[in-house]
């Protein structure tokens, strides 16, 4: 654009005057350093996050697959109902020895004689390869369709957790046989079954749907997911409005006097109260005083609400403080009331900060175990809670409990559970983050 034929080439441009020394080199170095610090800081954060995620995922991705065995189960009437009383006694079908059916099917599959005296030991080992969960699995099939008795069906049954671990290579098979839970014979059978395609790893949907169990292969996060869901809803529904309302009062309406100072200091202080103390409070107030049931997600939600409130309030207040006063006077000047000014102008501008507080507060509430300990939510709960008043657990509780289990198979499940929690967290935050992005605006 400068290729003009008669460009006077700056002949008349002012000759550069002697430049002042404003330490530009040094300042640029400082600038670059500063910028670098920022990058490094973000790098550190992301690095540690990556490291954490890496450890968790490496340890936990296998939990989403579970070794299953394909068996041709014969629903032998002589096993299910040896005395032929199933029509008169409904309990017969419910309490039959279903695991035996599965064991027999496995024995047949591996060509072991069920009747032979010398195979007794083998049969015990075989039983040990199949999950005890097969009892309910087969029972449900029979209960749903009693006509199935006598027939043979192809069924995928879960393997026992130790077999699962061995199949995934998590048990060191080089140690002496007596030191491990999976015996050499079982390993041999596993190889046979795997080669036949009868033993494969299938997606572990039970991890998401089942309740707690002492058998690793049957243990799932279902109850915990529901419990956490209830609690997060309660926290969201209570903590967000109360927190925002309190902040608005303190920041926009309250006279600046000792009383509001007291409230302010108080709220800041509540943020420093160890979470377990909120558990004490919840126990005293909600369970003992108000008579709400133990182990209920309602109580958990209330406790977590109180715990989250300071976080939301502090974040919201900071955000409200940051809204320039000219916005307020603009609205007031055309006859908006203070309430209208706050809700129409100030709060929307503070929304990103509010949402950040909410995200962080909820994240914290989602990951908290200690306060739940005292109100009975760190518990073994196998049945789904129908309402927030029923016993339930929470995701971090399940993680905490699994982390303390002795069985090897719980190790990967612990990491798997953490992954689920993080997914839950991500899903929960996504909405807030999208909202926040909508509200973000520079002026």
């Amino acid at each position, binding site marked *: 654009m400068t290729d003009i034929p008669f460009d006077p080439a700056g002949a008349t441009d002012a000759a550069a005057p002697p430049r002042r020394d404003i330490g530009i080199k040094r*300042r640029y170095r*400082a*600038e670059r350093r*500063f*910028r670098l*610090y*920022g990058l*490094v*800081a*973000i790098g*550190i*954060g992301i690095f*540690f996050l990556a*490291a954490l995620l890496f450890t*968790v995922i490496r340890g936990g991705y296998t939990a989403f697959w579970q070794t299953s065995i394909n068996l041709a189960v014969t629903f032998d009437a002589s096993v299910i109902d040896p005395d032929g009383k199933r029509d008169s006694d409904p309990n017969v079908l419910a309490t039959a020895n279903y695991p035996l059916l599965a064991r027999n099917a496995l024995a047949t599959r591996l060509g072991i004689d069920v009747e032979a005296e010398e195979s007794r030991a083998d049969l015990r080992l075989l039983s040990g390869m199949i999950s005890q969960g097969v009892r309910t699995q087969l029972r449900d099939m029979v209960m749903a369709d009693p006509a199935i008795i006598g027939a043979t069906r192809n069924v995928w049954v879960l393997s026992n957790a130790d077999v699962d671990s061995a199949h995934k290579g998590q048990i060191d098979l080089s140690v002496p046989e007596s030191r491990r839970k999976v015996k050499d014979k079982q390993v041999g059978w596993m190889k046979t079954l795997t080669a036949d395609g009868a033993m494969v790893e299938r997606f572990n949907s039970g991890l998401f749907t089942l309740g707690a169990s002492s058998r690793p292969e049957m243990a799932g996060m279902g109850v915990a997911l529901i419990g956490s869901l209830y609690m997060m809803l309660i926290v969201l529904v209570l903590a967000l409005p*109360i*927190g925002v*309302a*309190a902040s608005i009062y303190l920041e926009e309406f309250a006279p600046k006097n000792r009383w509001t100072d007291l409230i*302010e200091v*108080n709220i*800041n*202080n*509540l943020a*420093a*109260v*160890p*979470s*377990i*103390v909120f558990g*004490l*409070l919840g126990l005293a*107030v909600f369970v003992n005083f108000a008579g709400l049931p133990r182990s209920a997600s309602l109580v958990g939600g209330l406790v977590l609400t109180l715990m989250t409130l*300071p*976080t939301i309030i*502090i*974040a919201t*207040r*900071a*955000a409200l*403080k*940051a809204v320039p*006063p000219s916005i307020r006077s603009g609205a007031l000047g055309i006859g908006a*009331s203070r309430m209208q000014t706050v809700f129409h102008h100030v709060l929307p501008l*503070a929304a990103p*900060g509010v949402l*950040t*507080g909410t995200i*962080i507060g909820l994240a*914290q509430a*989602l*990951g908290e*175990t200690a306060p739940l*300990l005292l109100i009975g939510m760190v518990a073994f709960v196998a049945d789904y809670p129908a309402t927030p008043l029923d016993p339930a657990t929470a995701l971090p509780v399940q993680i*905490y409990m699994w*982390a303390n289990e002795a069985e090897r198979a719980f190790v990967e499940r612990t990491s798997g559970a953490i992954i689920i929690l993080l997914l839950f967290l*991500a899903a929960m935050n996504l909405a807030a*983050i999208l909202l926040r*992005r909508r509200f973000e605006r*520079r002026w």
Partner: protein
Amino acid sequence: MSVSWVLAIILVIGVAAFMVARMRAARLEPQAGVKQHSLPGYHGSYALILAIFPAIIFFGVWKAVSPIYVDSAVWRSLPEQVRSASDVNRSLTMGTIYTIGDGMRHLAPAELDQVRSGQADLKALFASKGVALASSGEAYMIPAAETYRSLSDSSSLSSAIGAILLSLAGAWLGLSGITLRRRARNNVERVMLWGLIAASTVAILTTVGIVLSMLFQTLTFFQSVPLSNFFFGTVWDPRFAAAGSGGATGQFGLIPLLAGTLYIALVAMLFAVPVGLFAAIYMSEYASRKVRSVVKPVLEVLAGIPTIVYGIFALVTVGPLLRDISAALAGGQPFIMAQSVLTAGLVMGIMLIPFVSSLSDDIISAVPRALHDGSLGLGATRSETVRNVILPAALPGIVGALLLTASRAIGETMIVVLAAGVAARLTFNPGEAMTTITVKIVNQLTGDLEFTSPQTLVAFALGITLFVITLGMNVLALYIVRKYREQYE
């Protein structure tokens, strides 16, 4: 009538009042020279408020107060000698009476008669109905239970009727007198303001609740352990007395725990604050919108990872790593233990990064761009602008964020347990293990020790002490912020 029914009816009345009032207000004839004071929606809301709030407050208060009245009425109905005899465990007696009274609702008339005539084995009968009775009760309890039952029945009926009538009256009040000049907006806003005030008192109530829920046990604790032993003791060894003291209670020295708490929190802050602040500055000042919109939520994930995960991370990865590094540096003997203040602080600091970064980023972004431009226009570099103009302007908010961060650092348990251990020691070396008050609160509460012993009760004393200490720190922080606040515009 059950509570939920009453509430539902009140709600319906309220909604109806809202609709009618809004419609009426919208249809008001405009008059020359008179402006309508409030929008129709405000008239509607006002009617709604009148219809709902007094009724619910009445209902709630009644529900809260009537049991006290019923309780004393039933108590007075008991025979004199019973009263004097069982004065000590009045609550137990009354509890049994209530259980019987409530249980009688489940009984069939025939069974009721049996009960009245004293023929039935109460415990068995009630058990068959799924009501637990600690003991079979005494004969005098049956009439008392009936008194209780009739009193509470009539109380709940009258409360329901009263509440609904009040609701109707409120609705009528809201609907009558809808005029152009009615200050419905002011009224609604006044109620809203009270709502806001109420919300902010939740914090106060929580505090009161926390103190109350710990105070009683704390006092019990201090009955067996002298204050000086607790506050000035330098040894934490609750199961063992100091040699020669002869006491059996042990040593409850707060100092090592307090030191550990502050030390670990300090290390965590030393890590989290610079990293978080620089990250925030980078995000709000340098990064493109896109980068920021990704990095910020990504960092926020750090706040959501359960602390036990951090704990395990510290235990199996960071701790040994630091130990090995320090061993390599020192050539043999590590100067950082696997469990140490440093490990705990570092890992906790990681968790705290988003507390600093996200909150500060929001606050920094909220500083009006005119300030930015003003500084850049003078030839300041971005970093100079940030340091000299933006940060000071954003300071009050950032201090708030830092306070929150520090608070979290003090309140954290799991990371400390796994990263720094539970040994209460007094040392200045960050390479060694220390522990925090919070850890001890959790441990003493969840242990195997007798729950009536000072070893368990000390948890409450620790809780209250920590509460008071952090309160003091917050007062200090408030004072400092006040002093250095810079208000823009």
